[in-house]
């Protein structure tokens, strides 16, 4: 059975959607951060699959840059989480309500 681009797109879409559900549904900060990584991986997979379907290697170049940028974003995200944790002692999103009015 030949593996077509649709198969790769289906996997990338699933990863993207599972990531989105994780971001919206989970209250643990670290898991939300990981879910964003999942979404980015879904996008990366879609880029690589389309690069093969279209025969344009630019897709691979974008994935390479996206991995680098996602790492920088995760680093800053974790810096924020640790800075907050040091003060509040919790990573539960619901306990961060001092901004609600």
């Amino acid at each position, binding site marked *: *059975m*030949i*593996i*077509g*681009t*649709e*198969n*790769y797109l*289906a*996997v990338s*879409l*699933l*990863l993207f959607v*599972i*990531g*989105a*559900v*994780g*971001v*919206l*549904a*989970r*209250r643990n900060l*670290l*898991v939300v951060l*990981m*879910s964003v*990584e*999942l979404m980015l*991986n879904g996008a*990366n*997979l879609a880029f*690589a*699959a389309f*690069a*093969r379907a279209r*025969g344009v*290697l*630019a897709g*691979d*170049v974008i*994935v*390479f840059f996206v*991995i*680098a*940028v*996602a*790492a*920088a*974003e*995760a*680093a*800053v995200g*974790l*810096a*924020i989480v*640790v*800075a907050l944790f040091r003060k509040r002692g919790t*990573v*539960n999103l619901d306990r961060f309500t001092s901004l609600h009015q």
Partner: protein
Amino acid sequence: MESVLFWILSVVAVASAVLTVSRSNPLASALSLTVCLVAVAGLFATLSAHFLFIIQLLVYAGAVMVLVIYVIMLLNLKEREMKALGLSGPRVFVSSLVAVFVVALLARAQSGSGGFDPVSPVLDGSARRVAEIIFTSYVYPFEVVSILLLAAVVGVVVLGMKKF
């Protein structure tokens, strides 16, 4: 042979993605995310994107996840707290609604996307070919990324360092 490997890797990737989102213990989520990243790296290999296969392993599974697990270890959440952070009812309902909507929309978009030839490894994504493109036509984004990384370093140190 390729199709068998593709199916195994995709099932592993999706299953570990679901585990990442659903496990209450963040270390278990981190571990299943690492498995998912390695599976996606394998999928890159089946797409003959050899360079991406190794960069995904090196940067994502090798450095980002080490940092995430490191932070989990550092913050080492109390047992009690971990249990309380499971999936919360209403939010799950809302987000699955959104997910279904997005899946329907995009599936419909992609159903029309026939006409793509089967993914024969026509495009050899080896390090040399990708590098040739990066350093000739994408030089500008390459320099922009160095500035972005520097901004991230400054940002992290400003947030991390106590001696202000």
